[in-house]
């Protein structure tokens, strides 16, 4: 069953500094994300990964093509309840502390008081924020913010977790924790869609990988191929062919 479908999606942005010319960011991108998989989208910086995510979330609208998420349109409240999102450079409500912030997100995802408290406690421990949960978020380091971002992404067991560069700013231990958290959530039934430009991370946890370059989805690498060849070789081979 497909949870996300992109069909021939195109998106352009107007460039203010060169006389309002339009630059194509996505060129006929088509792919689907199947229920229960971990789908990775790789590409160099500025190739359209974040734009793809923003279209999936309904933050941006495609110029052409269709995007279907859970049989509906992106941005529909019914489907938003099933989705969580971690932005590339998370900035949350800085005057709140982690407990207040996670309670807010959990309540929006429909958790009741009892489940909310236990979920928050468990997640704070899993992401390694114990002892800092009552500190205002403004005092968090980059790594701590990323950990909090991961905690909010997994609260309420969303059906689809969208992570934009989730391992950015994390130390090696933090990266392992994040990978374990992603794999665990996937085992519990969440479908994961995540972007990264660090191939090693993608290779370790993804069941399928899409390679995005200059706004075009050049290839979708299936699981058997991923096991046969290092992702770096596949990636470089595809990019060099362009």
């Amino acid at each position: 069953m497909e949870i996300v479908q992109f069909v021939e999606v195109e998106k352009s942005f107007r460039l203010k500094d060169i006389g309002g010319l339009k630059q194509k960011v996505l060129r006929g991108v088509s792919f689907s994300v199947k229920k229960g998989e971990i789908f990775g989208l790789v590409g160099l910086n500025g190739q359209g990964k974040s734009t793809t995510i923003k279209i999936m979330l309904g933050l941006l609208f495609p110029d052409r093509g269709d995007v279907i998420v859970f049989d509906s349109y992106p941005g529909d409240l019914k489907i938003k309840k099933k989705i969580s999102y971690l932005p590339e450079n998370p900035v949350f409500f800085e005057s709140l502390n982690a407990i207040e912030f996670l309670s807010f997100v959990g309540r929006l995802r429909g958790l009741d008081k009892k489940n909310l408290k236990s979920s928050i406690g468990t997640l704070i421990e899993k992401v390694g924020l114990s002892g800092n949960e009552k500190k205002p978020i403004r005092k968090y380091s980059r790594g701590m913010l990323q950990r909090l971002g991961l905690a909010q992404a997994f609260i309420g067991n969303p059906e689809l977790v969208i992570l934009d560069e989730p391992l950015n700013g994390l130390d090696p231990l933090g990266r392992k924790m994040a990978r374990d958290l992603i794999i665990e959530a996937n085992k519990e039934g969440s479908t994961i869609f995540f972007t990264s430009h660090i191939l090693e991370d993608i290779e370790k946890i993804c069941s399928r990988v899409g390679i995005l370059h200059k706004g075009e989805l050049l290839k979708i690498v299936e699981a058997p191929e991923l096991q046969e060849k290092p992702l770096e070789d596949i990636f470089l081979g595809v990019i060099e062919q362009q």
Partner: protein
Amino acid sequence: MRDILEFTRITLKQSTRLRAFYSAFVITLVSLIGLFVIYSFSMFEIPRILESYVLSYTNFIVLLMVFFTLFSLLQYDIDRKTLQYVIALPLRRRDYIVGRYLGIMCFSAIIAYGIIVLFYPFLILLMKQRPDAPFNVVRYFTYPLFLLAEVSLIISFALLFTTLSTKSIISVISTVGVYLIGHSLDEVKEFLLGGHAQEIPLFSKILVKGAWYIFPNLSLFDVKLRMVYNLQFSFEEALMIIIYGIGYTLAVLVITCALFERKEIL
């Protein structure tokens, strides 16, 4: 509705945790001392001077805090891109607009009534010693409603400009602009279209008339002097001013929500 209330609560929490809120509290305590200083220096019309002082102070601090809160919250939402994250949460886009509006309104109401209530026993204490002018308690406690109606319009315009601009400073400057125009429009219109009408070019007249219809007339809400001097102020007139504020706010919020549904969040 539950989602709106959740976001309203978060907005209120964010507002009350701004450092400016604590500064306003300290300044208010200092101003309380000012009440006694004014009392000791005044010779005539003391009750009116004291009441005028409290209402003007309330007006000043509420507006200052509203602009400061708007600037702080919108700076996070737009410039630091918290908006991206918020819109991706299980909220309707309009829930963000309504939640922010209600949160800042609640915050303004807390400050306005907080000051009015805090000053009240001291006003009574000082006025008892100089009972030379009637003090209308109902009018005193009604005043913040007019101030809040004005604040309501300011917040709704700030949210409208937020949906139209990509920088928080632009939306704040535009909102300050609406505030200034809204307070001067009545006088400018009276000047240009009144006694000097023949000397004014037609273009200027059309411009002022157009602005008079588009921008809110904020001077309507400035009822301090009428309150303090017990000038004629019927219930119907007061009600019309409040209805004008609510109606205008609703219209701006509806337009804002409609525009925000189509806004691309970069």
